[in-house]
């Protein structure tokens, strides 16, 4: 990863092999290195603080001395003997991997004195190219979650497994008892989709050794995609969707930008097609709820989830039967199957000829268009059919082989409800003696209707390899508490042939053990030894796996050890070869199905949110206080209603409703969602945890419990719902006060045509005059440009900022009072008719105005201007008059109403030592990551070179999957920011106030006929 290397020239992060093998320090330690629990390596006499300190120091020592090439030794050595590579105050960076359940990301973990403080994207990794998701950032806080279990646990269950007395247990005792149990055989594994090839192999071989079966499930189901692929092309894959190759993208109830499969990668690709020029792609979205994808649409149509199939069939009909596009034209089955969908526009409530028009447009881009569908919102009975039709259309349009590639499929979403029901059958016929659950929380994520919770009670022994006694843990007998990923080794295969390693970046905080080590220990206990199962520990196993499975495939890698160290360095091994797959559509599959979903008058759909997804990070307060990119609501899930339905049902925001759906009746608050299709109620999953921890327990409703098993499928949409408004009200906390721009020039939108004719033609520049001559900035002057055209509103930057700048969360009660602390917020405005609202997003940071209104009014000069053009906040000088905030037209300043700094142990370890924690009564705000600027400046000085463009990256810029944020020195004419800043399509927010912001926005360009109204009268030049 040379970019990181030259970003941080000193020190080198990973010692070369020679060095560490020669290093006497290492040799000494290698001798008396032992593998046992960290606690046992401590002398009991020490107070907690010192032990913790030493542990951390020891960790960093081990990590850096060994360059993370070996399992960190628990040898504790104070910093008195500082390892050569560790300079206190200089961060170390370790390439690693993160798998969020569906998407794999290459990450770089920033550590300070041996503790990870931030996760950044690995620019080397082909999947995300440095892009990040909000959850990937928040993942680090789970490491420091105070509610994690601190050691192995045993539940003393009674016969019915209802009472639940938990005792601590030593690892030895646990291993002993588990091994005894395993000897009985009949072992079943229930895991999430395992994206780690080594782990997968380990589990497989262990299972085969103990004669067990493995079952995989995904909390957010994607099985329909694979099913569809199987039926249409005969291979069980999740293909790669090459959005970057598409000029026309049609997403039908598919949120590929927000939550579907691999959003970060999709956004990366999508943004590459969004340069406002003749090649700019067009995104047409047909959906029920307003998703993040829908809010980025150039054109958007609303249908009910249960009508998804009709729409796609209608489209296929137009393309195939009417326009005779593609090769399937002749096929009788298809022709007949499509006939009945001749005129669906009216039925779907679309304008007559809409589908025909879309067909026209998309047909212009054969082979360079892409139709996407699927996700929880289409998880009705037609889920698979929808996939098949989608595949048909892609095949008709010749996208198969160009934008849909199956040659190197994504290594994800292998789980299915079928496997779960198989497991339950197995349990029923008593063929499961021991169930080992890993990586999923089925008790929470499966509805009671599925009978899983009951089934679990009938398993003699349940071993749950989780990090706490959560919903599933409550039902388990043993909890071999696992490491957090940042404490553990591992690897990741995002798509076929793209491998990356995951390395520990901190000594395990607690007496935990990686699941893999547990398996190895038990294997040892069972005395069964296949080649690798005999490995001394997981790290050895991983290495030998890579040695035998991956290393051979690599040409000219030198010795394995070199290869190993290099892969650790760069974090990725890309063996993917040019994918030139081309498959032909199996017409046969088509005749097999009929439309099964009825179209109820009011239907309920479940959907995952960008912030919480399946709720695995629910106990991370950052994610609970993460403003939903669309609704901007926090700390709750809620029933979303269209404006039409709200009128009909006389609903108002926050009004409690009771919803009757398949026999259950649940109460929850109503949220009125502009742009949502009528006759649809949405409810987000991931909330309503009961044993997730202090943060998330009791927040919202568990929507998973509303899913319905239907044979081998778990339905997540299309439920007939009866809604009755209640008299009660409920406070929904939002971070955005008002949703329209009131016709003010805030986000400037242009159509592509307008843009091509005159970029920025829609910007209204007021005539300005001033009584002062401006200050000169002879040296550097920092500035930022934000490309609203690229920004998708995914809010990764918001969490990146939170992680980088030690920004506290305040809780729902205070968000209701508008006291959230985010330095970077993303304003989301609705445009056009509320019923059919469009969306624009606008990230707002401190504008660092040259004529900063906040500075003028501060009585004590606590906020002043630096000679590099940044608006600095001097916390220890601030007395807290809040005048600056009142006078800030952008209201980017945040006030510490109470003391937010004293966080619960060990959350304090997540703090970035470079950024002051602000105490009660002072104002704070975005600093342009001044600490990063200063760090790079000193680095440059140390190696006396000039600071060059790109050296300084702000946290938000770094994590943006679409590179919408550019930061740099505007006095350097060659810097990217300087080039952009003066361009005609860039504008100042609230220019008429003459604040002269250092942040400029690129207009939002829509590849559409016209722009939706911004409310009230329009500005025009």
């Amino acid at each position, binding site marked *: 990863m040379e970019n990181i290397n030259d970003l941080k020239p000193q020190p080198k992060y990973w010692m070369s092999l020679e060095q560490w093998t020669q290093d006497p320090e290492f040799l000494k330690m290698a001798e008396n290195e032992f593998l046992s629990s960290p606690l046992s390596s401590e002398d009991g006499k020490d107070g907690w603080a010192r032990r913790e300190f030493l542990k951390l120091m020891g960790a960093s020592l081990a990590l850096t001395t060994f360059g993370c090439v070996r399992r960190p030794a628990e040898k504790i050595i104070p910093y008195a003997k500082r390892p050569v590579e560790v300079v206190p105050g200089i961060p170390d960076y370790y390439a690693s991997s993160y798998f969020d359940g569906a998407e794999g990301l290459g990450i770089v973990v920033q550590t300070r004195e041996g503790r990870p403080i931030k996760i950044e994207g690995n620019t080397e990794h082909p999947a995300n190219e440095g892009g990040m998701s909000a959850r990937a950032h928040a993942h680090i806080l789970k490491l420091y979650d105070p509610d994690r279990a601190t050691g192995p646990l045993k539940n003393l269950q009674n016969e019915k497994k209802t009472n639940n007395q938990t005792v601590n247990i030593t690892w030895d005792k646990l291993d002993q008892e588990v091994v005894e149990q395993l000897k009985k055989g009949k072992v079943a594994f229930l895991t999430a989709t395992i994206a780690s090839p080594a782990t997968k192999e380990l589990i497989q071989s262990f299972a085969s050794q103990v004669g067990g079966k493995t079952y995989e499930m995904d909390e957010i189901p994607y099985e329909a995609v694979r099913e569809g692929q199987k039926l249409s092309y005969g291979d069980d894959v999740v293909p790669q969707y090459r959005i970057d190759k598409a000029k026309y993208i049609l997403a039908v109830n598919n949120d590929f930008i927000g939550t579907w499969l691999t959003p970060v990668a999709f956004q990366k690709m999508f943004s590459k097609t969004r340069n406002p020029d003749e090649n700019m792609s067009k995104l047409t979205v047909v959906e029920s709820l307003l998703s993040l994808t829908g809010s980025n649409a150039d054109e958007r149509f609303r249908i009910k989830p249960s009508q998804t199939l009709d729409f796609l069939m209608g489209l296929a009909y137009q393309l195939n039967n009417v326009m005779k596009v593609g090769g399937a034209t002749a096929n009788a089955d298809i022709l007949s199957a499509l006939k009945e969908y001749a005129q669906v526009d009216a039925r779907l409530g679309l304008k007559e000829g809409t589908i025909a028009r879309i067909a026209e447009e998309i047909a212009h881009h054969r082979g360079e268009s892409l139709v996407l569908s699927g996700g929880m919102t289409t998880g009705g009975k037609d889920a698979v059919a929808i996939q098949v039709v989608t595949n048909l259309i892609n095949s008709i349009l010749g996208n198969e082989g160009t934008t849909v590639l199956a040659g190197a499929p994504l290594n994800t979403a292998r789980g299915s409800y079928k496997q779960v029901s198989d497991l339950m059958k197995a349990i029923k016929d008593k063929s499961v003696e021991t169930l080992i659950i890993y990586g999923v929380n089925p008790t929470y994520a499966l509805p009671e209707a599925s009978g899983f919770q009951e089934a679990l009670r009938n398993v003699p022994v349940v071993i749950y390899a989780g990090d706490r006694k959560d919903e599933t843990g409550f039902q388990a007998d043993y909890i071999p508490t696992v490491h957090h990923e940042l404490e553990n080794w591992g690897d990741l295969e995002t798509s076929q042939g793209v491998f990356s390693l995951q390395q520990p970046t901190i000594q395990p905080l607690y007496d935990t053990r990686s699941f893999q080590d547990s398996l190895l220990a038990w294997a040892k206990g069972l005395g069964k030894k296949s080649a690798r199962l005999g490995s001394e520990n997981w790290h050895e196993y991983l290495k030998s796996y890579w040695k035998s499975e991956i290393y051979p495939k690599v040409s000219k890698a030198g010795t394995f050890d070199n290869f190993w160290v290099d892969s650790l360095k760069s974090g990725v091994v890309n063996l993917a070869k040019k994918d030139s797959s081309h498959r032909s559509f199996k017409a046969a599959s088509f005749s097999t199905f009929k439309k099964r979903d009825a179209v109820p008058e009011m239907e309920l759909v479940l959907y995952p949110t960008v912030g919480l997804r399946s709720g695995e990070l629910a106990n991370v307060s950052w994610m609970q206080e993460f403003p939903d990119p669309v609704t901007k609501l926090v700390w709750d899930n809620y029933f979303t209603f269209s404006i039409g339905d709200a009128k009909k049902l006389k609903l108002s925001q926050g009004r409690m409703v009771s919803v009757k759906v398949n026999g259950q009746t649940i109460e929850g608050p109503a949220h009125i969602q502009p742009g949502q299709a009528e006759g649809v109620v949405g409810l987000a999953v991931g909330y309503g945890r009961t044993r997730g921890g202090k943060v998330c327990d009791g927040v919202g409703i568990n929507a998973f419990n509303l899913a319905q098993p239907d044979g081998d499928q778990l339905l997540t949409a299309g439920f007939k719902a009866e809604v009755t408004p209640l008299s009660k009200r409920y406070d929904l906390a939002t971070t955005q006060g008002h949703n329209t721009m009131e016709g003010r020039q805030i986000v400037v939108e242009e159509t592509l045509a307008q843009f091509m004719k005159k970029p920025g033609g829609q910007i209204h520049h007021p005539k300005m005059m001033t009584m*002062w*001559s*401006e*200050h000169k900035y002879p040296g550097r002057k920092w500035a930022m440009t934000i490309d609203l055209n690229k920004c998708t509103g995914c809010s990764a930057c918001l969490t990146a900022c939170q992680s980088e700048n030690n920004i506290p969360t305040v809780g729902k009660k205070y968000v209701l009072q508008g006291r959230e602390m985010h330095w970077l917020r993303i304003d989301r405005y609705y445009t056009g008719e509320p019923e059919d609202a469009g969306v624009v997003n606008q990230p707002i940071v401190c504008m660092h*105005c*040259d*004529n*900063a*209104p*906040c*500075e*003028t009014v501060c009585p004590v*000069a606590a906020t*002043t*201007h*630096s*000679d590099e053009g940044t608006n600095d906040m001097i916390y220890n000088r601030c007395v807290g008059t809040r005048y600056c905030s009142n006078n800030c037209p952008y209201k980017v300043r945040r006030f510490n109403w109470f003391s937010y700094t004293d966080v619960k142990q060990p959350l304090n370890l997540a703090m970035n030592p470079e950024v002051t924690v602000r105490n009660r009564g002072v104002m704070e705000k975005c600093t342009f990551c001044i600490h990063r600027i200063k760090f790079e400046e000193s680095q440059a000085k140390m190696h006396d070179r000039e600071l060059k463009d790109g050296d300084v990256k702000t946290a938000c810029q770094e994590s943006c999957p679409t590179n919408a944020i550019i930061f740099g020195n505007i006095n350097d004419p060659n810097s990217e920011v300087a080039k952009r800043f003066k361009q005609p399509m860039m504008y100042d927010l609230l220019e008429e106030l003459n604040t*002269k912001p250092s942040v400029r926005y690129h207009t939002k360009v829509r590849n559409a006929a016209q722009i939706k109204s911004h409310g009230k009268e329009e500005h025009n030049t």
Partner: protein
Amino acid sequence: MREASMGIIDKAISCISDKGQDGIAGIWDDEHKLVEAAKKTRDSGVVGFEAISPFPLHGIDEAMGIPLSFIPWVTFVFGLSGCAFGLWFTWWTSAVNWPILIGGKPMFSLPAFIPIMFELTILFGALSSVASLFFICGLPRVEPPVIDPDLTSHRFALFVPKTAKGFDKQRLMDLFKSLGADEVKETRF
């Protein structure tokens, strides 16, 4: 400077511990008679006598030939210096001693400093005038001799100290009586 201040201090001390001097006092119940009496006394060639009243008397200044107070000049001078100080201080702190970039405004942004200058003008003016009042009237004074307690309520007096030019005990007593004084006595004030 130093001598001056010493002088002031001495005077202050002498004031505070001033136990007055012997003389003759005539007391009236009607302020108009007093003004009349004061006039007559002055005409009779007495210089350096004093009139005591519970409230300022109309025409007594003319009667006794007391000139207009000079305090306005003090006020004026100190007011101006207050203004000047305000100007200098704001300029020196924001443009010289530690210039800081603030809101894109020039280091010496005069318009913003005017309120400060104004307030200091008033403050200096007001305090200086009161200070000089106290100084001139010899306040504060500890337990000064009292001719008659009612002189701060409803009676009016003339007092001629022995040291006064043209002091003649008998003549003055007669004069006061003839001017209808309700009471004439030798006293200390």
